[in-house]
């Protein structure tokens, strides 16, 4: 038990969530281990984004409990909880009125770091995500390409060195080439920094590239939770349906 508690960073314990009478998540049990990248795969409306928002308490469970670092989300101070969790959404969700430097340095600034330390951290992170700090720090988000904005989104999530990252379709809006290179770089960064990441996507290829474990969601339930190898070998009809799309794409090429 103590071993599980030590290894687990996020635990879903019989979690259900409904919004104005509609069940969105039903009886979810899931343990996310420290250092792993867990990908939640599923079509739109399957509840995967809601699952993410239950972790940083943008939502609170209707039944069951979600524990982060052993403590239920409802007993965490929400502000403190969120500052320990990096959050990346599609297109980055950057603040259009902040410069890139201020966007990236936001969480450290909220945490009350000294300006000089923030500046150093921002330069370090911009370099980490492959953007030249001298060229980009003082620009505004609209002056950047979609891929660059997405990199900034990741840099912002990493800024205060949170142990856990939540990523909601982070590469969804990008062209295939940019997406592929960003996926590779992200996998590299996550491994190097030893971060735990929960990533949501509807792209099975992305799931296979990034995941240590893949959780397949359908209509608010977790159908299965497997390593990519087991996933590829599974007989589950939903899995087969996903893998067929992959083969079709292969034929196109």
């Amino acid at each position, binding site marked *: 038990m103590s071993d599980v508690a030590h290894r687990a960073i996020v635990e879903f314990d019989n979690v259900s969530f409904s919004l104005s009478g509609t069940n969105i998540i039903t009886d979810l049990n899931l343990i996310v281990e420290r250092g792993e990248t867990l990908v939640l795969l599923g079509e739109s409306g399957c509840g995967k984004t809601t699952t993410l928002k239950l972790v940083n308490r*943008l939502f609170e469970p209707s039944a069951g409990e979600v524990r982060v670092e052993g403590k239920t989300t409802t007993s965490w101070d929400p*502000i403190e909880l969120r500052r320990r969790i990096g959050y990346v959404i599609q*297109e980055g969700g950057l603040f259009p*009125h902040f410069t890139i430097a201020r966007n990236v340095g936001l969480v450290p600034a*909220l945490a009350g770091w000294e300006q000089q330390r923030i500046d150093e951290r921002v330069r370090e992170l911009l370099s980490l995500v492959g953007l030249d700090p001298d060229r980009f720090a003082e620009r505004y988000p609209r002056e950047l390409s979609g891929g660059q904005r997405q990199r900034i989104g990741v840099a912002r999530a990493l800024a205060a060195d949170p142990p856990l990252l939540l990523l909601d379709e982070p590469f969804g809006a990008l062209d295939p080439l940019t997406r592929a290179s960003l996926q590779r770089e992200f996998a590299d960064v996550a491994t190097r920094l030893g971060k735990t990441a929960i990533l949501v996507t509807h792209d099975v290829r992305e799931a296979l590239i990034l995941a240590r474990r893949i959780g397949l969601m359908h209509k608010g339930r977790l159908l299965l939770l497997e390593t990519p190898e087991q996933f590829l070998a599974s007989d589950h009809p939903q899995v087969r349906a996903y893998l067929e799309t992959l083969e079709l794409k292969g034929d196109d090429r």
Partner: protein
Amino acid sequence: MSFWHFLQLNWSELLSLVQQHVVLVFIAILVAVVIGVPTGVLLTRYRSLRGPVLGIANVMQTIPSLALFGFLIPLPFIGGIGTRTALVALVLYSLLPIIRNTVTGILGVDPNVREAAVAMGMTSSQVLRQVELPLAMGVIVTGIRVATVIAVGVTTIAAAVGAGGLGVYIFRGLRQYDNNLLLAGALSAALLALAADFFLGLLQRQFSFEAKRSVAGSTTRKLLLAAGVLILVIGGFALWRGRATSEARVSVGSKDFTESALLAEIVAQMLEARGVPVERRFELGGNLPHEAMIAGTLDLYPEYTGTSYTAILHHTPISDPRAVYEQVKQEYAAKFNVAVSEPLGFENTFAMLVRGDDARRLNLKTISDAAPQAPQWRAGFGQDFMSRADGYPGFSKAYGLKFAEVREMDLSLTYIALSSKQVDLVAGNSTEGRIATLDLFQLADDRHYFPPYEAVYLVRQDSLMRVPALQEVMTKLANGISTDEMRRLNYEIDGNKRDPKEVVKEWIAKRGL
């Protein structure tokens, strides 16, 4: 007089009116922003309040401004006459666009951006201050811009409650048919509105992050900020100065026509000569002077006994001047705690006027003499005379008059209309200066239809106790002005377009008062 020449002569007065106008608008908008933006923010948090609050603000905007001023005057603290009332009304008018745009602006912030802000661990006040307000600022400033332009317009009406501003010129111009005054007031107000629109447009562009370049703009923003602070300081100073000296003042009011303002100016100058500081609240519309005096914001104003008797005390007109005077004096003391001065020595009653040559040719002396001519005549009457109970309806009945045609026109136009033979009989004021200069003849009211309109001053009893000089001035002016003299003084201002202050100064000097 050419407009250019007029501007040269009245430059400093125009500037001080512009300054009053700007200060009124600026303070009103400032207060409206301080109230409106937090209200708007609150409405984005409590959806159920949105309908009712926006509804109330909406209704505020639909109340005609003059009516709103009328409602405010009797209220304690926010009411009365002068700057405060005008400001309250202006703030009420300015709230809607500011509240509405704050709500629209904040609700219009991209929900992804707001969610990202929450997920980054911002507290709700940080989300508001660092994300929602900055992103909504462009829309909010647009609301402020709309409110400011409206306020510049509405402020012209503030002159009716004695708050000053460019409306003073507009009202005076309308009354005296002086296009220079009208033009100077209206043109300046329009230019002010355009200037406000332009500068707030610049400000708005500063806040619209879409158009903002990475580096440029920060100096412009500093300049705008500096200008804002400067205006704030000037406004604050003007307000402070107004407050500091208001203690010992006597507040002298007048109605919105030349003679009333003249009579008020006479008292004002005589008080000042005796070392009493005076606050001039001239040219107040309708019943405002009466209500302001009852509310305690006015110490005295000139009135006519017949008006008090019928319009304020609601008695049926009677013809005995002494009886009317005594009744008014007694009831004002009992009901309002207001003293009535001795009559000033002239009446300003409705004067039935015909052209001098008609009067001589037809040998007309009285209204009864003219009755047989009426079916061939066209008559011209002011709106006031047409509508009041002791006006046209009663008058035509009392003399059995039937005219070929009755035209309703502005009072000040009737004299010219008569002398240029557009009409044949008008109801003017008996003290109108142009009666002599246009060779008009006043028919005697032989059936004593019109109640006596003797000029008097109405003074609050407590003001008489507080300022002994007031009693002295009232005594000196008793029976001090004849009808001819009043006509001449009126003509100096309406006919010769002279400055009322100088005309009064000369008159006081000549009379040794």
